């Protein structure tokens, strides 16, 4: 299962858990799995059919350019990061 690092300001949704393990082969599936376990998570991360433009996602240390479509491996680490103007990276 992939390990998802929950942003500090979203941990109210996970009961304070900083990391959670969920199944998913893409970031979209990871978000769906998070939503089913922690309702409200999707609204914070997704805008329509795309990753929110205010959010970056890094899989195994690299900030992906394809958002929800990015592949996630069985032992991957997934980080959701704030994407605000003036810099982006991983």
């Amino acid at each position, binding site marked *: 299962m992939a390990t998802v*690092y929950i*942003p*500090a*300001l*979203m941990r109210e949704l996970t009961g304070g858990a*900083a990391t959670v393990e969920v199944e998913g082969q893409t970031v979209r599936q990871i978000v769906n799995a998070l939503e089913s376990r922690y309702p409200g998570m999707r*609204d*914070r*991360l997704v805008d329509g059919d795309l990753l*929110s*433009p*205010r*959010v970056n996602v*890094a899989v*195994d*240390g*690299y*900030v*992906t*350019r*394809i958002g929800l479509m990015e592949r996630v491996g069985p032992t991957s*680490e997934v*980080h959701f*990061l*704030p*994407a*605000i*103007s*003036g*810099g*982006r*990276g*991983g």
Partner: protein
Amino acid sequence: MRTADRLSRSNQVLATTHYRVVGTRPIRHDGVDKVVGRAVYGADFKIAGLIHGRVLRSPHAHARIKMIDTSRAAALPGVRAVITGRDFPEADDRWQDLGEGNVNLKHLSDNVMATDKVLYRGHPVAAVAANSPHVAEEALKLIDIEWEILPSVLDVREAMKDSAPLLHDNVTTQEFGKDTGKKSNIAQHFRHELGDIEKGFAEADIIIEREITTATVHQGYIEPHNATALWSADDSITVWGSTQGAFPVRDQLVQVLKHPISKIKVVPTEIGGGFGGKIPLYLQPIAALLSKRSGRPVKVLMSRSDEFQGTGPSPASWIKARLGAKKDGRIVAIDSTLAMEAGAYPGSAVGAAAMCMWAPYDIPNGRIDGYDVVCNKPRSFAYRAPGATQAAFASEMMLDELAERMGMDPIELRLKNSAKEGTRRIDGPVYNRVGAVECLEVAKNHEHYRTPLEPNRDGKKRGRGVAHGFWFNVGLASSCSISVNPDGTITLIEGSTDIGGSRTSIAMQAAEVLGIAAEDVRPSVVDTDSVGFTHVTGGSRTTYATGLAAYEAAHDVVRQMKDRAAKLWEVDSATVSFADGTFTTGSHRIGFKDLAGKLGHTGGPLTGSANVDPGGHGGAFATMICDLEVDPETGKVRILRWTTVQDAGKAIHPSYVEGQLQGGTVQGIGWALNEEYVFNRDGAMTNPSFLDYRMPLTYDLPMIDTVIVEVPNPGHPYGVRGVGEVPIVPPPAAIAAAIHNAIGIRMNRLPMSPRAILEDTGVIPRE
């Protein structure tokens, strides 16, 4: 020391891998045009029927436009068009990627020209196109505006208070996707957290706390913004001008003008510096609308005063931090709060600042809070490693203080805590192969660091300081195509505007693949109709990502030429191999150039192409050593000697890498010692010229010695890491450490100008 000896020892490359073309120093392809003044910059551009536009800017920092009447201006003989914010289509209230971050399109449009409210002095409110620039300037004086002046706020801490005047009715604080519903100038709050900071601080033997402020500074590129636009009768728009990204300009024009992408072409001219400041839109949509109204091509130029007051500087900041360490120097916890001035609209560099602040170190427990705060200053934008310089000023000074309290060498302390492959940053990601340790080791063993400071002279106090810094770099999309000429040379088409010699560094990567010389490549930077999408020249990405596109396009050429060789030899193309510029199979062999001469009768012209959007950019570290002397009577600081050590992964063209290291270092020195926007109580900048906004001159500086360290980035075939941004990160902290070493004072603010030093040493009272 003789000058020649000094220059010869000033730059070193510690290469780990050697190639045929990569790593050499050919003459740049655009060198002659630039040296003789033939290169065409935006202000040089001419076209038949050209008229001239000028922009009217707000005299107030915060005011409502109650009435605007342009009739007198429009009636002036020679005036052909007048526009105001109401002539722009209503922009969408959504966010779009601009390369070094996201921008709200409504805010972008409102920043191009205000509609009902101005948010800073210099905010555009109207524009005129006329037969001459002088008539346009006269016409601006005839535009009548009735203002309702509003209270303004110019400081990040003041703007964060509940009692501060609000800039926007619709900005509420966002917390990672959650709208708190609270109307505030704090547009966003985020937090990174790792480990258990309470436990970490409980384990600490030494705790250091610091609070720092930094001033607003400008990129200071030498060429002002410019744009020429032609809105044709068929509604196609062509825009010429200086930009860090023709495609992002096109995409922003689509949104701001609500115009089809297929009807907009952006032609980049040569660019006289950008450093992040030429990513956003300012003049292009104004020139386009003036052209639509007048039916003529319109050129709009900024003055230097417009530049300072109307474009996006690097944000002023307030940073408070706490650090806990064990007796042996190991850092066990940090806690930091960063607040940065976004200026008129949300989107400061605080996100990047938070990512970089403690990134050079392996710290098990940490928390970083970031606040993006609007205030009545120009909307801030990227400036070379956006946010990281401000953050490193705080964190690196604390490292220096920790080293002093431990009685430990400051580089040894950094080595003890250094990030390396496998280290997890406080914001989450784990490092791949990075060169932090290598940079520190090279600095520690450098002759500069091992040579004692010369004694104080003439009442001046000498000091030495070191600092270390990080920038993450980016990848993003790039495209290239290569056409093979019959003489074996190639034409390389790319979309990355060339700021620092990237034509050549990209051409060299293609030449390396094809086994030809760099001089056999003719690189051209073309318009948005002539190559695939290419993102900005920014984020230290161009040599990495567009270089990767050239590398892949060259391999596409090789694949196709293998087919041609196979056709020539009547063999299966799978049996043809290519190495060192020669195609071979069995007893057959033919060089790249000879085969190029046979393309005409083996199938005709041949073009290779590639589009990439890589994610393997590697972060970069730099370590700097600074010697200086302080005059305690005047507060003046003179830099005596400087060494910049930086990991480039692989320096494709070492001279350009050295240029980036020296340029970034010098900008950091200016930021440290002199540069700042000075505002009066009404929110007007009082020093909007290079006479009063003091940037370093050659007379102010010694030779900036450089050492290029090469720890290959596994995400690039030659190991390239972006190099353009990290060299601006450590200088202010290195200078602060050296000032402390010289006079025993820890400066907590930028700039560390003569006045600031005299105030902090008690020679004059604090203003």
